[in-house]
C-alpha cells in the first residue's frame, strides 16, 4: 500500500494538532475497536470557523485526513463548512488507498460532530447538519445506545 506524497506530508507534519481550551464545539467520532478515533475542536466566531484543532488515534491516513480536514475548515462559514465532504478531503490529499477511504469519512464526520456540538451548545439549528452516526462525543443528552 502506498500513500501519496501529500498524505505522507500531512502525516509527518500534521497541521493543527492540539486542543482549543475554549472551543465553541468539540466532536469525537470513531471507536478504538476499529482503530480510529478523531477529536476535532472548533473555534467559531460570527459564524466563521476561526480556528480548528484535532487529536487522532489511528493510522497514517487517519492522521493525514484529520490534518487536511481541519486545514480545509479554517476560515470557512458554517454553511461552507458543511460542504467539506470526505471526497473533498481525499481530493485535497491526492487520493487514498481504497482500504483507507473510511478514514476520510471519519474526518468529515468529525467536523460535523464538532459543528453539531456547537449547535447544541448554542441552541441553534444548522440547516443540513445531522448528528453523525459515529459520534461518540460525551454530550450529556446523548442516549446510551449511541455509544
Amino acid at each position, binding site marked *: 500500500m502506498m500513500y501519496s506524497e501529500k498524505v*505522507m506530508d500531512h502525516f509527518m507534519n*500534521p497541521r493543527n*494538532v492540539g486542543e482549543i481550551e475554549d472551543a465553541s464545539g468539540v466532536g469525537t467520532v470513531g471507536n478504538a475497536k476499529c*482503530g480510529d478515533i478523531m*477529536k476535532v475542536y472548533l473555534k467559531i466566531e460570527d459564524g466563521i470557523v476561526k480556528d480548528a484543532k484535532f*487529536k487522532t*488515534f489511528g*493510522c497514517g491516513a487517519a492522521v493525514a485526513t484529520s490534518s487536511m480536514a481541519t486545514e480545509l475548515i479554517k476560515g470557512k462559514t458554517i454553511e461552507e463548512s458543511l460542504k467539506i465532504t470526505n471526497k473533498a478531503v481525499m481530493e485535497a490529499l491526492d487520493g487514498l488507498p481504497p482500504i483507507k477511504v473510511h478514514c476520510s469519512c471519519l474526518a468529515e464526520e468529525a467536523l460535523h460532530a464538532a459543528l453539531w456540538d456547537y449547535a447544541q451548545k448554542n441552541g441553534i439549528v444548522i440547516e443540513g447538519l445531522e448528528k453523525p452516526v459515529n459520534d461518540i462525543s460525551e454530550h450529556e443528552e446523548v442516549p446510551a445506545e449511541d455509544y
Partner: protein
Amino acid sequence: MEYYFDNAATTKVRPEVLEAMLPYFTENYGNPSSIYKISQKTKKAVETAREQVAKAINAPNANEIYFTAGGSESDNWALKGIADSYASKGKHIITSAIEHHAILHTCEYLETKGYEVTYLPVDEYGVVSPESVKAAIRPDTILVSIMFANNEIGTIEPIKEIGAVCREAGVLFHTDAVQAVAHVPIDVQDMNIDMLSMSGHKFYGPKGIGAMYIRKGIKIPSFIHGGAQERKRRAGTENVPGIVGIGKAIELAVSELDTEMPRLIALRTKLINGILDKVPYARLNGHPENRLPGNVNISFEYIEGESILLLLDMNEICASSGSACTSGSLDPSHVLLAIGLPHEKAHGSLRLTMGHFTTEEEVDFVLEKLPPIVERLREMSPLYEQIKNANK
C-alpha cells in the same frame, strides 16, 4: 542503509548461500531427471541438500524430506493430503487459534468440504496446552496441526509433549515450523513429529523454496501431479538453485545455533527491557522466556501500529504490526485477540524480529528512535489525553 527488524517476514540471503546457489543457474543447469553427465551434478546437489535438511531436524532418512515451493505449500499439502488419505478413518482435525493463515485458511477450506476442525484456544502467552489437545482428540480425529513457534508473538509451543499426546492416541501430528527451523533446535524423532513444514527464506535461504518432512509410512497423496520428481509426491522440475540454497542455509544456521541463540536472546532481552524501561503503558506480548530468540512483540497503548511503522520507516527501521491497517481488514491480528488483548491494544502492537545480521548497534538505534515516536503519536492521541487528564 536500513535497520532491518522484520526477520520473521523474510531474511536476507547469506553470501555463503548465494555463492553455493550461483553455479546452479549457469554452468550446472541440467535437469536432474535427465540421463547425461551434466545432470548427474544437479541430481547429486539435490540429494546433498536433502541430506542437509534431514540432518538439521534429525530426520532418520533423507528420503523423508520433500522439497516444495515454500511454507504455505507444505502446510496446504499436509492438511489437504492427510484429509484426503485418512478420510475413511474420520474427518476431524485439531489445530490452534493462533496458526498462520496457511493453516487456518486451509482448515476453513476443508470445513467447506465436510471436515470438522477444532481450533484450540491458547493461554495469555499464546501457549497451546498438551492437555487441551488430549481432550480434543476423538475417535474420528485424523490430524493434529500445531505450529512450532508463533510468527507474531514468538511463543514456542510444547511440541514434544503435544507430539507425545498424539502418538499415544494414534493420531498424526504435523507442525508448521516455518518460524522455528534453524532458529531453535528441532529433533523430529525426539519430539514425536510426524510431519513438519519449513520455508527457506526464513533462515537466510532464498524465497520460493520450502520442504516438508513426512515420516516414513505416512499415507499422503501427491500434491502436484505430473512427473516422478520427489518420489512421485511432488511433480515439477526441481528448483535446483533453491534446493541447493535451502540445504546450505539450514546447514549453516543449525551449525551456528549454539552461538547464535544466546547472542540473539541477549539482544532480545536488551531490546525488550530497553523499551519497557523507557516507554510507559507498554506490554510484552508472547511468552517471556519460551519465545523465538529474535522475536520482540510489544503493544503500546493509545496509539496505532501503522503510524508507528510509518515513523520507524522514516528512520530507516523496518518492522511490522498486528494492527488492522496492516492486516488489510478492520480487525487486528487474530493472534493478539486470541491471547486476550482487547482490540485497542492489539492495534498498537509492534513486532521487531532480529536475526543473523542484527547487531547491538542496531538495537541501540531502535532504543533511541522508538520512544520519541511513541511519545509523538501519543501527544496526538485523544485516548492518551483522557488518561493524562484522569491522572491529573
